[in-house]
């Protein structure tokens, strides 16, 4: 025990009754006790003991500084952004969002979670300032705006880094892809805009929300020409068409092969990427530079090398990176950053060091309270980002790995453009929501191999009720789970529309299985049923 630990031990002992985890263990409250009903607003922040509360406070301060820097770097565009765009208002919920994500986290898992989260916050705040500064709708300069290549959020931006003079920017990330994680009430507004225009109410809510953002003129106006796509699935083609009509810029549809596992698909997808490069060269009058591209390919290769080492730790009970801290970071750092920001490499190096140490010390996250190890399949309900935190805190179900964490992990050649192009194509085809959801039965069915490889006894399958493709495989997956001996729970949700299936409805899917099928008691009874319908 270190000197500091000895000093704070009596304080921790005196204040332990304020720790919600202690309260749950002693039957005098729990993690939900400190909230005002429905709102998700906590009366006070979680007391985690002196050391962990200080870690959380330090992280809060760092994030606060990032936000202040964002406003300071572009005060007028940021203020105009808040005034113009409804989704900007939702970003104010970020602190509450982070609190929800890491509720119940202590020790090494808390340190890692905040390191990962701060990487996202510092990146996002810079991006918000950058895009608002160059947004023509807010008075940004044409010259600055035309150095940006807006592209669909599901296109990996890495291949665009060969354009030294240009900055790729995922167009939907700010108004839709990220913000629906932070605020469950934002996308229903845009979905309603799209449906009021005549879009059927039973389409994928992600595509509906994106369409609504376009019709509501809530996309920042940036760039000279854009790259749209058919990824992750064919529903995206429709929303791309709506966006193209509304935004009115020349666009190139990067249509990658759906059946992407087949060898014959590679030349087709490869040519599409080449054509996309040619399109940018023509529209922007710039030349592609492979050496510039290789610089960034090296960064993503390093990240993927570390990622594969992380996976070895995930297979054991001694991984300090776990749950949403893993899922959200991988999703953002791979899909959105994609080798463009060396800060993420720095964070990965730091995190892997902590993970190695934790493994040596046989450190178990969440005080060793995990009862089940689960693989989380499928695009999660993004209005319920802290769902993995809830499964652990309430029932001891640790989400070891999420489907989207298995996105493109192949290495990219950093010397030969021809080889690099092949690698890049394979890498790009395995983008967000594609690896196990698109491309044939083998891709979907691989969930069992992944679950087995990561020593999971449980598979949670996110059941997007508006995903026409996946609705067809329900019964097949249930049969497979029974035959292979996995605990298997379908978690119904409506991706970005919390009105159709609420967070409590989602929790009930797990509650029923744990109670009725497994006959287990919750770790924290205050978390079994509560109303958070008015929370962000």
């Amino acid at each position: 025990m270190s000197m500091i630990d000895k000093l704070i031990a009596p304080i921790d002992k005196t204040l332990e009754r304020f720790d919600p985890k202690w309260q749950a263990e002693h039957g005098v409250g729990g993690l939900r006790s400190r909230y005002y009903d429905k709102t998700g607003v906590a009366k006070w922040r979680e007391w985690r003991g002196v050391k962990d509360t200080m870690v959380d406070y330090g992280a809060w301060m760092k994030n606060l500084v990032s936000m202040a820097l964002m406003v300071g770097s572009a005060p007028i565009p940021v203020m105009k952004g808040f005034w113009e765009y409804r989704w900007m208002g939702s970003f104010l919920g970020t602190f509450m969002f982070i609190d929800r994500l890491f509720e119940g986290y202590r020790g090494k898992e808390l340190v890692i979670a905040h390191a990962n989260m701060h990487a996202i916050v510092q990146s996002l705040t810079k991006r918000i300032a950058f895009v608002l500064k160059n947004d023509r709708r807010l008075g940004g300069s044409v010259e600055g705006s035309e150095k940006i290549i807006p592209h669909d959020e599901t296109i990996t931006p890495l291949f665009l880094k060969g354009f030294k003079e240009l900055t790729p920017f995922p167009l939907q990330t700010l108004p839709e892809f990220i913000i629906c994680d932070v605020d469950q009430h934002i996308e229903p507004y845009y979905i309603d805009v799209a449906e009021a225009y005549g879009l059927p109410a039973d389409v994928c809510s992600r595509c509906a929300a994106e369409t609504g953002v376009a019709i509501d003129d809530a996309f920042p106006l940036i760039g000279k020409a854009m790259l749209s796509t058919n990824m992750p699935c064919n529903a995206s083609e429709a929303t791309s068409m709506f966006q193209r009509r509304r935004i009115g810029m020349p666009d190139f549809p990067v249509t990658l092969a759906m059946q992407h596992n087949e060898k014959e698909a590679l030349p087709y997808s490869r040519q599409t990427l080449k054509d996309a490069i040619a399109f940018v060269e023509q529209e922007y009058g710039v030349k592609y530079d492979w050496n510039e591209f290789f610089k960034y390919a090296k960064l993503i290769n390093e990240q993927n090398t570390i990622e594969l080492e992380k996976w070895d730790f995930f297979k054991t009970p001694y991984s300090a990176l776990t749950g949403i801290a893993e899922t959200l970071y991988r999703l953002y750092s791979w899909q959105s950053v994609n080798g463009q920001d060396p800060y993420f490499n720095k964070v990965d190096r730091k995190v892997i060091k902590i993970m190695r140490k934790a493994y040596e010390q046989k450190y178990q996250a969440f005080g060793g309270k995990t009862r089940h190890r689960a693989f989380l399949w499928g695009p999660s309900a993004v209005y319920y980002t802290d769902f993995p935190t809830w499964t652990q805190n309430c029932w001891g179900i640790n989400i070891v790995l999420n489907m989207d964490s298995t996105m493109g992990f192949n290495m990219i050649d950093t010397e030969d453009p021809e080889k690099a192009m092949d690698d890049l194509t394979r890498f790009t085809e395995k983008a967000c929501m594609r690896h196990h959801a698109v491309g044939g039965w083998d891709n979907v069915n691989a969930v069992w191999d992944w679950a087995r490889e990561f020593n999971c006894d449980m598979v949670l399958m996110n059941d997007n009720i508006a995903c026409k493709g996946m609705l067809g495989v329900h019964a097949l997956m249930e049969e497979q789970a029974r035959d292979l001996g996995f605990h298997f729970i379908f978690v119904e949700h409506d991706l970005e529309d919390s009105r159709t299936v609420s967070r409590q409805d989602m929790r009930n899917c797990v509650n029923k299985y744990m109670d009725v099928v497994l006959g287990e008691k919750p770790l924290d009874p205050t978390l079994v049923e509560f109303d958070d319908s008015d929370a962000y």
Partner: protein
Amino acid sequence: MKKVLLVCLKLLKKLTLIALITFVLTFTLYITNGENKLIYYVVRPLLNKHYDSQVRDRKI
């Protein structure tokens, strides 16, 4: 030399005091969840009122 040392000491005292006051203020805001209460109950309702009053041309 003594004078420089004294100035340094004074400066250190001032900096420590500023750091302490900053810590007390920010930690109080943090532990009482003050910023989130302000955002949830005051800022967002005002912003939402503004967003709801915006007139958008939604013709395609």
